[in-house]
């Protein structure tokens, strides 16, 4: 049915999955950093975090991808000669993809994490401080574990959007499943078949993610009381 392109597309699916997972790891790091900045008592840090979240969320993913991919490559090669580098620098598309997606979704996650931190009762951090914990200890031992529970719904949403947004990286030439499907479609002149197959794979990925994150949410909600409606 897929004219022997099935295994190529599965290879692409693997790349899509690794791209999404690696980007998410970077996005979580940037999101935590962004949330910490925005909640900081230092005004300029808070403004910096605010600016990051607002600007990135105000620009389409595709434009940011094109900007960072082509623009970034362009800038690197304009700056490199000034530093005495003579060869043309080609950025690896996977690394560029991870950097771009991580940078974009870090901004969205910073919003999710900020809300989740603010949902933790103040007394928790105060109790930690009363025990003599340092600021970092309070952050990692008291706040982060509780924040996770509040952040899971927003995180789920962001993960699903990120997974689907990875398809855009195929536009700049990363050979993910979307790229492979486009190639197969052009070669066989059966675009509907291949795009439908890829759609099914994305649907599988999002469905499995939904189930897994629902289990995780249950795990992190152990010991909390739910409102009885």
């Amino acid at each position, binding site marked *: 049915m897929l004219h022997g392109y099935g295994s190529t597309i599965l290879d692409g699916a693997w790349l899509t999955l690794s791209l999404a997972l690696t980007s998410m790891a970077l996005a979580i790091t940037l999101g935590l950093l962004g949330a910490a900045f925005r909640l900081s008592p230092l005004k300029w840090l808070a403004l910096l975090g605010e600016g990051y979240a607002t600007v990135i969320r105000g620009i389409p993913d595709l434009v940011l991808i094109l*900007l960072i991919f082509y623009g970034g490559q362009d800038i690197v090669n*304009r700056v490199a000669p000034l530093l005495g580098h003579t060869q043309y620098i080609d950025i690896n598309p996977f690394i560029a993809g991870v950097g771009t997606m991580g940078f974009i979704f870090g901004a969205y996650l910073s919003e999710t994490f900020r809300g989740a931190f603010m949902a933790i009762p103040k007394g928790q951090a105060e109790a930690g401080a009363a025990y003599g914990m340092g600021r970092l200890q309070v952050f990692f031992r008291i706040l982060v574990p509780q924040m996770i529970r509040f952040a899971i719904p927003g995180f789920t949403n962001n993960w699903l959007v990120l997974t689907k947004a990875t398809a855009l990286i195929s536009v700049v030439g990363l050979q993910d499943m979307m790229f492979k499907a486009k190639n197969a479609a052009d070669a066989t002149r059966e675009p509907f078949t291949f795009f439908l197959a890829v759609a099914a794979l994305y649907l599988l990925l999002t469905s499995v993610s939904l189930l897994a994150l629902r289990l995780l949410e249950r795990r992190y909600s152990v010991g909390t009381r739910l409102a009885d409606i």
Partner: protein
Amino acid sequence: MLDFQLIAEHLPLYGRGVLVTFQLLIIALALGLALAIPLGLMRVSKAPWLNAPAWLYTYVIRGTPMLVQLFLIYYGLAQFEAVRSSFMWPYLSSATFCACLAFAINTSAYSAEILAGSLKATPPGEIEAAKAMGMSRAKLYRRILLPSALRRALPQYSNEVIMMLHTTSLASIVTLVDITGAARTLSSRYYMPFEAFITAGLFYLVLTFALVQLFKGAERRWLSHLAPRKA
């Protein structure tokens, strides 16, 4: 190092791009909302034969990337001889038509879920009062449920509209010259990707802020009864 001279000379290209973006956005939103209202009503129905198809529709659309949906319609449909020989072919071979259709389908699924959530959150008292006044089901929906739910959906719907503004940038992949398309044209013609895409980004940023302000105004107009009381 950066050169915005050329960009300034080509601002009219971006201007035309803004118009194309607006056109795509308005058509997609209008069609999408028209589809979303019946879908949203189906999603709150207790009858499985109404609810299940709408659930499946929104689940599949929301679970697959916009780019795949766009490609399925624009490139995919041409695979079938029946489509190519049908009266719809002049439309289905046009990138503008396909982009509008794909965007409308996509936003209809998200909007339907927003509307369904809002309908489910209707205070029971409003419905009881309507029933006590002797309203029929149709009148209840027309006069009470829908106006109330559509208002309360505004904050979430404003997010969807902004997402849709950003989604229209995908039209540039199927050759349309919207804001992103203008940037891609300039970027490849003069090889100045950084300046071209930064400018496009600024245009979207301004449009996003304008939409946010517009919806703030709309919320003040239609949701003022739900605003927190000033002490």
